[in-house]
């Protein structure tokens, strides 16, 4: 692992030690990464290495969902239109329709729900097929979301990993780690030049615009916020934040050595903080409880120091 001190940033000097402590804690558990947390209302922020383009894994489902919901809000796409997903042709994945063994017919807007709440790859790729990967990418650029690129369906991540490892997850992970150390990429969806990518700053900017209704249409952003609030995974950003008075609306992303989550923390007090936590590690394991918790600790430390 390359040893390099991350470039910390903070809007005020008293927030800088918070960013440095998080970077230190991530380093201790062996997570390299990028963090940006910003108070949506005050603009105060802290983080480190915020501008690096990082392969997004399932975090890409957030911009996808926004483009689909935008099409629905515009009337270009019928939210009730049934889409049938066939096990023979659907994308693979462990959750949602991707894990179904029999054909399922799901309405378009419910595909968005599945893609966001349980990170269903089959539903996400059905949506990519409906609107087109290039259209999603073009819409993001039209909205001024520089720093986020959408270049492939979700299934391509699986295909690339399986292709180089003969469908052996352990081997694919080993290879990915060795590639990361060597600085070249035999798995294309881990190569920032070819993968769906985003930087922490671009993702936080997107969340901020979604939460402030400054992108797409209010109906679309409201629906995206609502569905992100229903995500079932809570092992990362929300692992140390959830309470009756604090909610996390997020989307995780996990692929080989990548462990991400972006989201917005909201509290009864009215405080709203958008966070993008993008990590990779050389841990030879698919589950790394301590890294997930370190992301949770970072989210909590950032939220508590940025709220008023």
């Amino acid at each position, binding site marked *: 692992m390359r040893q390099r001190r991350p470039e910390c940033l903070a809007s005020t000097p008293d*927030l800088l030690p918070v960013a440095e402590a998080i970077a230190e804690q991530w380093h201790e558990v062996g997570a390299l990464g990028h963090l940006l947390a910003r108070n949506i209302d005050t603009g105060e922020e802290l983080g480190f290495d915020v501008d690096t383009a990082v392969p997004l894994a399932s975090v890409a489902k957030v911009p996808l969902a926004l483009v689909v919901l935008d099409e629905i809000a515009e009337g270009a796409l019928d939210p009730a239109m049934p889409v049938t997903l066939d096990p023979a042709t659907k994308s693979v994945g462990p959750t949602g329709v991707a894990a179904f063994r029999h054909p399922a017919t799901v309405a378009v807007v419910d595909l968005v729900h599945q893609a966001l709440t349980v990170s269903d790859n089959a539903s996400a790729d059905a949506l990519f097929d409906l609107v087109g990967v290039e259209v999603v990418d073009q819409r993001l650029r039209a909205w001024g979301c520089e720093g986020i690129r959408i270049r492939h369906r979700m299934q391509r991540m699986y295909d690339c990993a399986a292709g180089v490892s003969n469908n052996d997850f352990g081997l694919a992970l080993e290879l990915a780690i060795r590639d990361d150390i060597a600085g070249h990429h035999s798995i294309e969806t881990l190569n920032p030049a070819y993968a769906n990518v985003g930087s922490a700053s671009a993702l936080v900017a997107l969340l901020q615009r979604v939460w402030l209704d400054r992108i797409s249409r209010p109906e679309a952003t409201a629906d995206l916020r609502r569905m992100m609030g229903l995500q079932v995974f809570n092992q990362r950003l929300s692992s*140390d934040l959830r309470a009756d*008075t604090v909610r996390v609306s997020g989307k995780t992303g996990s692929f080989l050595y990548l462990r991400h989550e972006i989201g917005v923390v909201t509290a*009864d007090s009215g405080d709203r903080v958008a966070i993008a936590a993008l990590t990779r590690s050389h841990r030879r394991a698919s589950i790394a409880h301590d890294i997930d918790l370190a992301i949770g600790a970072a989210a909590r430390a950032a939220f508590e120091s940025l709220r008023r």
Partner: protein
Amino acid sequence: MDLLAHLEAYVAVAEEGSFSRAADLLYVAQPVLSRRIKNLERHLGGELFDRSRRQVTSTDLGVLLLPHAKDVLSRVDHLRQVARAALASAAHALGVPPDCDPAALARVIRAGAERGVTIGVRELPAEDRASGLADGSLVFALLRVAPETATHRVPLGLASAAPLTVGRRSVHLESLRPRRGGGTGTPPTILVTAEDETGFAAERFRKAAARAGLSEGRVRAVATAATAAAETLAGHAVLLCPEPFARRHGLEWSPLADSTLHRGYELAATTRRVGHGVDLVLDWMEPMLAEAIGAVDDPSPKSTGADGGARPDSDSRVEGRG
């Protein structure tokens, strides 16, 4: 037998040397006076006056007892005078919460003295201030009311040995939850003194703590403020208190972000005493008392938490979470 009335009759007859003049002096009918003298003579076991002559004269017993009878009467008179004087200058009892600023309270007492009103300051628990006002043992009292409707609002915060927040930020109860995987020992107990451990305020705070994810055992009532300050200084606890109390004990202090948990006060006067110029006293006393309790000027706290504020995306809050 009313010994005092009988002694009065005896002294009057002895000094006037006449039953009729004595009766006039005491505003009683002469037969009543005569009966009293007879009763007293029976009570003492001997005659006080020689009635055989034209001029009434005292017997030897009557002469002997006269100074003693006068002494008893003068002492009773003194007793009544003292009681009257004490009642005239009776202190207006004022019930205040614990830990008021002594200098500000001294100004209240002095201002009263200048206006001829004796203010007796009594530091009492919240319930006793309310009951004292009801039963008339207090003339004025600062009563606890909800901060959002209160005339005087005293911000509450958490005092601690080390700062709880970065800079001058307010503290949220959620921040006090133990950190997962942190392993930094037991999280500090939140100490609550009697003033905040009563009625609706206690209920509100416990509910807010539960909703913020704190276990019930984290909040503990303490008997005295001094031991609470000591535990807090030792770094084992944080203390719910107003800023002046924390500063007086050399503690760090951060305000609670949820202002519905702050203290609210209303200055009230008893309804039992009318016509004592109570309203006039309230007028000059109120601003001085506000200073004594450390009230802030802003009378309308922003409501956070109580009504939830804007929560546009949580239309499914009653749904179970898988």
